[in-house]
């Protein structure tokens, strides 16, 4: 594979939601193998940052640079609620034509749920299903928005393990979560540090 090594950097980024400026002057650069944990309270702008990084939202100012394929995991699984899990995932596995579906299903302990329609899955089960979709994509840059929410302790451990493996393979992960996360070599910043200071005036 001649693919260039993945990279993700932002320069002087500012984002708004509605009329409110959430953060400004945010700059960072992530190289191959980097894990970054973005912390912040609800509504501080973690999701907005993720969407701006994913190119799903135009930032108010600044720029985002990215090399490598992009995988996004947020609170919406992208799986058809009426289909059994196996068939809902099969669509994304077919689109991505990436890693082996069987191994991924087994890894995330989804085999017993394969015939259950997605809408009957619990929050945590849906999250694991979304991780299966993400793994199937084999993307180089992961953007994870609250990947731990709704997961039990065992699954949370599994997520840290997946992130570790992902980054050990020279890929990048940026994780927005208010929950603590345990990955060696992880950098961390709080989105609140970049909040506009003159909020009282606004």
């Amino acid at each position, binding site marked *: 594979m001649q693919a260039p090594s993945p990279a993700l950097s932002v320069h002087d980024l500012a984002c708004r939601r509605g009329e409110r400026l959430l953060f400004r002057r945010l700059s960072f650069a992530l190289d191959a193998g980097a894990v970054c944990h973005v912390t912040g309270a609800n509504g501080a702008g973690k999701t907005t940052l993720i969407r701006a990084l*994913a*190119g*799903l*939202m*135009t930032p108010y100012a600044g720029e985002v640079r990215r090399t490598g394929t*992009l*995988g*996004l995991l*947020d609170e*919406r*699984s*992208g*799986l*058809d*609620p*009426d289909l059994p899990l196996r068939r809902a995932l099969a*669509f*994304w596995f*077919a*689109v*991505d034509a990436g890693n082996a579906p069987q191994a991924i299903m087994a890894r995330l302990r989804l085999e017993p749920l394969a015939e259950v329609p997605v809408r009957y899955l619990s929050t945590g089960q849906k999250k694991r299903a979304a991780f299966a*979709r993400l793994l199937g*994509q084999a993307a180089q840059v992961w953007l994870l928005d609250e990947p731990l929410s709704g997961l039990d302790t065992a699954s949370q451990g599994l997520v840290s393990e997946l992130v570790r493996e992902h980054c050990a393979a020279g890929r990048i992960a940026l994780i927005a979560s208010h929950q603590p996360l345990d990955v060696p070599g992880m950098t961390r910043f709080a989105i609140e540090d970049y909040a506009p200071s003159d909020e009282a005036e606004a």
Partner: protein
Amino acid sequence: MLAQLLRRDLAQFFPFTGSGAALPVVFFVAVAMLFPFAVGPDANLLAKTGGGVVWIAALLAAILPLEKLVARDIELGFFDQLKLRGMAEEAMMTVRLVAHWLSFGPPLVLATFPAAALLKIEGETLQILLLGLLVGTPGLAAIGLMIAALTASLRAGAALSGLLLIPLALPILIFGAGALARQDQVSLGFVAAISLALAAVAPFAAGAAIRAAREG
């Protein structure tokens, strides 16, 4: 990837495979069935007005699938995931248009046979009616897609889309039903032209609409 998406969309929207997708067709036949009860069994009257009723039924049936057509996949994050994989909104909406038309145009044309029997429509009138629906439904599908995409982020979207579709579908109705009254097929050329223009514009309009909904 487009082929995969088309297969998925068809499975979602096609009658009897998707959830509640047979409803427009059932509704269409039900309207045709009600009409003779309302105006009486006079075969001449039915044959004369029946074609128009079929067109109105088709127009109303086109409103039914709109609620789920775009809004649900925005909520699911489905379009976001496709976008990350480099697919343009216009391509997503083109596939959606094809799937939407296939899942309601041809079934409606088929359902016209029982409807025509109930309304005593026969011979050349039936032929013009079938042809008209065949070339008119792509236009209805295109209008429906644009409206569904535009109203996807509104809370009252479903109710609004019905209201919006009716005036926009007027040209198709006028020429389509007009062809029946005059028994000429020239008007059907106009219907086809309108459909073609709408189908060409719809993916761009709908694509821009879901992009705007995402930014909002």
